[in-house]
Structures are given as structure tokens and as C-alpha cells.
């Protein structure tokens, strides 16, 4: 009897607890939801939109719809037939009336240098719709490029609605007239070098930060808390100082009539001012200055966690100091080294402001070109494709970073 009644009261209680827990979980989700929706609108949506622009290719299709349809069945081996020429002539007439030639011309010019002239020139000289059957003859007469197979494959390949053109271009690749992926022409193949430069500068800055940051973190971790807190100000003050202020400070220090050159001249060490800024040296110095705290802080917290007992144990077991340091201390700082280096490297990859202000033309990193193509030349497809490559690299490295710190720093210890 008692067993039955106990079971009767137990089940509802269990269910009630479960219900209460479910309500709690729903409430918890409801609290996170506003931020998720907000970030969807102000962050994820915009980035997804940018990624879409990297493959979106509808300009030519909108301006030359009949031509794209006519070329759909073209085998691409020989010149297209009369219908394609007639469709193009009709499209050009319509586009000229609508004033949209420039849109298609701009896109086609990305794929084939000089296409802008071909398209606008042809549209301008095409006084009226050619008689049926004479479209090919008329167009070729206006511009001999229409006898070229590449002209037509370029239009076909830009027919969208999606394309790999910009992503390939971001990696210095193009599709040739036969659709095979080949290396881009040397004068257009600049992005691999820019990616390599971005990578190299980031790597150099990371190495500098590690070399400079390690002894400082070691010192801060070894000193008693009172003193290390005081010295920590030297790390935290630059950390909190505006990036613009720090960049400005380096220009004032390093420019040809700057503080460093003046002092060296005054001391009689140099006669001519050294070139310390608007070159690679200036970029590396300023970026190292900005990113050094991001190295010191994770290194410091990993070193702080190492018990001094290990080193004492190593010493008491007869290890010479250097051996103890290399084999006992250093391995324990590896997670900190990894976290700090990855963090600095990730942040360095996306740097824009500092190289833009203290670098020369040959020191600009990938972000500079993304900005340039967005605001100056309005080649949004290429800007987005370069952005997509940078984003991919950042996300991959951030995933490694997340694994490395195992939710300790990156989540603020919120992982249960």
C-alpha cells in the first residue's frame, strides 16, 4: 500500500520538477534571445550579405538578358550563331535607352580588360536595330572584338546568377575560355602576394610580441602581487589607450624630423635622418606596441598558475636551472604561449588602421584592399571575396584558439 502511494506522489513530483526545469530553460533562452536577434541584424546578417556578394553575379544578366539566354545553349567552341548577335544588339539598344550599359560594362571589364570600351563603343555606334540576319555583320563591323570567341565566353561566364569569379580572383585564379581554372595574368595576380605579406607581417609581429612579452610576463608572475600589480599598469595603460593615440605617438617619434631622429642627430650618432616610418619597420614597431598586451596578459595568467614547487622539486632532484626551466617551466607555459600567439596573430591579420597610417604602399595588408575596393573603386564583389578569404582564415584560427583555451578565457569562465 505505502509503496503504491509513494509511487503515486513520486511521479507527479518528478513531472512537476521537470516542468519547472523546462520553464526555467525557456526563460533562460528568452533572456538570450534579444541579443541573438540583435546580432543577427547588426552582425551576422551583414556578414552573410557580404559573403553573398562574393558570389552574386546578376549585373550582366539584368542588362543583357536576351544575350545570356541565347548563349545558354552555345557550346563555346566556335563563335555563337546569329541569334546571339541579334539578341546582343537588341539588349544593347534597350540598355542604352535605360542607361544601364555602364553596369554591365564595369562587370565585364573586371573579367576582360578593355571590355568597357568594346561594350560602350558598340552600343554608341549601334544606331538602330540591325536588319534580321545582319546582326553579326553589323556588330563585327563596329568592333572586331565580336569576332573573338573570348569576348563571347566572357559574357557567358558573367551571366550569373552566381559566380566563382571573384573568389578565384582573390586567389589569383581565372577561368579561361574553355572553363578551366588557370593562373591569372601576372599584372592582375597581386592578391597571393598581399595575403603572403599580411601573413608575414602578422607572423613577425607575433614573434616580436612573444620575444618581448615572455620576460615581462615571467617577471610579473614571479614578483609578489603588490609589485606586479604596480608594474601591470605599464601593460594596462597602453592597452587602454586609444589605438589612434598610440599610432599618432609613433609617427611623432619616428618621422624624419621626429623625436628619435632628432635625438640621434643631437647625440651625433647620425647625420642624415633614418627612415623609420612609412615602411615595414614602422608597421612592425607600431603593431607590436599595440598588440603586446594581448601577448603578455595570457602568458602572465598561465605563468601565474605554475606552482613554484615544480621548479624546487626539479632543483632538489639535481636539475641545473636551465634544464629545469626548459623541461619543467617552459612546457607548462606552452598553453599560454599558444593562446597569446594565436590571439595576437588573429588580431594582426585583420589590421587596417595602423598599417594605413604608418605603412608605405608596399606594407598595406589585406584589410586595406578590402576597404579600398569597397569605398574607392566600388568593386564590391572582389572586396567581398577578399573579405571571405580573410574571414575564413580568422574563423579557422579562432576555432583552434577556442580549443586551446578550452573555454577558460574566451568564454569568461562561463562554460559549465
Amino acid at each position: 500500500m505505502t509503496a503504491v502511494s509513494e509511487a503515486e506522489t513520486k511521479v507527479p513530483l518528478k513531472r512537476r520538477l521537470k516542468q519547472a526545469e523546462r520553464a526555467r530553460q525557456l526563460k533562460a533562452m528568452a533572456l538570450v534571445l534579444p541579443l541573438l536577434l540583435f546580432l543577427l541584424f547588426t552582425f551576422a546578417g551583414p556578414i552573410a550579405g557580404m559573403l553573398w556578394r562574393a558570389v552574386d553575379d546578376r549585373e550582366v544578366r539584368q542588362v543583357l538578358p536576351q544575350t545570356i539566354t541565347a548563349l545558354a545553349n552555345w557550346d563555346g567552341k566556335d563563335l555563337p550563331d546569329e541569334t546571339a548577335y541579334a539578341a546582343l544588339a537588341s539588349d544593347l539598344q534597350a540598355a542604352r535607352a535605360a542607361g544601364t550599359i555602364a553596369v554591365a560594362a564595369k562587370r565585364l571589364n573586371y573579367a576582360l580588360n578593355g571590355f568597357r570600351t568594346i561594350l560602350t563603343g558598340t552600343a554608341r555606334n549601334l544606331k538602330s536595330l540591325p536588319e534580321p540576319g545582319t546582326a553579326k555583320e553589323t556588330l563585327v563591323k563596329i568592333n572586331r572584338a565580336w569576332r573573338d570567341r573570348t569576348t563571347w565566353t566572357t559574357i557567358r561566364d558573367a551571366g550569373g546568377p552566381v559566380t566563382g569569379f571573384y573568389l578565384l580572383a582573390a586567389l589569383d585564379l581565372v577561368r579561361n575560355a574553355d572553363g578551366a581554372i588557370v593562373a591569372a595574368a601576372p599584372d592582375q595576380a597581386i592578391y597571393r602576394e598581399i595575403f603572403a605579406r599580411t601573413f608575414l607581417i602578422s607572423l613577425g609581429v607575433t614573434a616580436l610580441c612573444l620575444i618581448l612579452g615572455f620576460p615581462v610576463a615571467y617577471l610579473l608572475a614571479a614578483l609578489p602581487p603588490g609589485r606586479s600589480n604596480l608594474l601591470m599598469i605599464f601593460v594596462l595603460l597602453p592597452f587602454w589607450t586609444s589605438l589612434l593615440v598610440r599610432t599618432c605617438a609613433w609617427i611623432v617619434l619616428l618621422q624624419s624630423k621626429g623625436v628619435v631622429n632628432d635625438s640621434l642627430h643631437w647625440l651625433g650618432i647620425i647625420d642624415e635622418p633614418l627612415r623609420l616610418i612609412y615602411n615595414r619597420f614602422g608597421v612592425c614597431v607600431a603593431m607590436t606596441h599595440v598588440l603586446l598586451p594581448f601577448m603578455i596578459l595570457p602568458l602572465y595568467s598561465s605563468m601565474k598558475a605554475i606552482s613554484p614547487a615544480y621548479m624546487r622539486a626539479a632543483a632538489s632532484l639535481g636539475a641545473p636551472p636551465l634544464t629545469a626551466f626548459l623541461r619543467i617551466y617552459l612546457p607548462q607555459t606552452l598553453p599560454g604561449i599558444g593562446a597569446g600567439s594565436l590571439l595576437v596573430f588573429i588580431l594582426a591579420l585583420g589590421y587596417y588602421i595602423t598599417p594605413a597610417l604608418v605603412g608605405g604602399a608596399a606594407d598595406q595588408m589585406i584589410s586595406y584592399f578590402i576597404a579600398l575596393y569597397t569605398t574607392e573603386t566600388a568593386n564590391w564583389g572582389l572586396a567581398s571575396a577578399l573579405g571571405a578569404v580573410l574571414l575564413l582564415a580568422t574563423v579557422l584560427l579562432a576555432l583552434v584558439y577556442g580549443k586551446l583555451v578550452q573555454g577558460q578565457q574566451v568564454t569568461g569562465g562561463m562554460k559549465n
Partner: protein
Amino acid sequence: MSDSPSLRTPSQRIAWTTTILVSILVFIFLIAPILAIMPLSFSSGSYLTYPLPGLSLRWYGDFFNSPRWMNSLKNSMIIGVASTALSMVLGTLAALGLAQWKSRFKPLVLAFVLSPVVVPGVITAVGLYFFFAPIGLTGSYLGLILAHTALATPFVVITVGATLQSFDTNLARAAASLGASPLEAFRRVILPLILPGIASGALFAFATSFDEVVIVLFMAGPEQRTLPREMFSGIRENISPTITAAAVILTTVSVILLATLEGLRRRNERLKGGG
């Protein structure tokens, strides 16, 4: 030398001395540039070199009498305060939710919430530029406030989350058992306890917005230029001592923020030590 870990051999002493010397050089490297430009802002001459020809406040006068600089200071304040307020609300709510939420998707959600910190500024800026232009949010305060809030909120989530981790959930239960409504329990028990976390999150959020320049470069019209944006143009064109005055003002704001944060941290530690 008495601070050192254990210095028994000469080689250890040399290593320790080297560490100290290198560290001093690095500290100089970190702090000297910031200190070096400060006196220049008080120069009476217009060249940015030492020795100063004389002292004057003319560049500060320039700064405070220039409509361009004053407008940018005002804009930085408006955008900074508004995005801080918005990120405090969104971030605190989310941190409270995340602390209670148990799901295998939680790490994913957390990674998403924190990702604005990691994604390069140019990518966020370009995305926002494309996304906000058609709906009229470029060249507007609202657009900049929304964008800065997205960048700043992760810091609030992190700091409030860290405070919640040391938060004793029994306190909330005790409040409930004593008859407090959930809202009352939040207002009178939870909020006072996590307030230091919210405050440090707010400081981080404000600093993030106050220092941000990439998004402003892409999205601000001439009316919304902020102080860092104005400095960016100034550095590009020609560095006048007025910029060093602006730099000193910006640094002063940073020092105030840092000192407040440090004060909060000390207070928190004292409370923890006392309790």
C-alpha cells in the same frame, strides 16, 4: 633581488637580472611613446620636436574652439553612451540567460555572441556598409550606435558572466522562499551582487565604442565623425599639435576608465575577502 624565486647560483642571478633589464626596456617601449607626445601638446611652437620652445595652452585652445573637434567629441560621447547603455541591457540579459541555460548548443551560441570581438573590423564594417546603406542607416547616429553595440556587447556578456559564476544561486532561492517576486528578487538581490560585473562591462563597452574607428570610417557621414575618426583624418593630412592635444584628452579618458575599472576590481576583491 629578494623578490626573485630562488637564486642560488650565479647563472640564475644573471638570468634574473637579464629578465629585469629586458622587462624594463619593454616597459619603456610600451609607455614612452604615450608619455612622449604629452608634453608636445603644451608646446608654444608648432613643430612636434624637443626641446619645446616654450609652454602654452594654445593647442588646447585650438581644440576647444574648433567646431570640428568639439563636434567630434560630442559625437563620440553620444555614440559611446548610447551603445554602452544598449549593450548593458542586451549583454546582462544574455549573461543571465546563458548562466542558467543548459544545452549542447550553448558553446555554439556563446561563440556566436563573442564573435564580434574576433572578426576583423574591416569585415564587419564592409558588411554593415552594404547592409545598412539600402535601409538608410549609413550616415546616421542610429546606425553607428547599433554597430558599436554589436562590438561592445561581448565584453558585457564576459564580465557579467564572470560575476555570475561566483554568484551563489541559493541567494535567489532564499529571496524567492521569503516571498520575493522574480522581478523583486532580481532587483534587490541579484542586481546589487552582479552590479560590479555590469559596471566593468560598461567600461569596456564604452572604451570599445570610444576607440572604434573602422566602422565609423565606412558608415559615418560628415555629421557623425567621432574623435578617433577626426584624428585619423588629422594624422593622414598633417599632424598638427592640435592632434597631440586631442590625444592627451583621449588618453585622459582612458586613464579615468582604467582607474575606475581597477577601483571596481579592488572593491570586488575586498568584498570577496571580507565575505
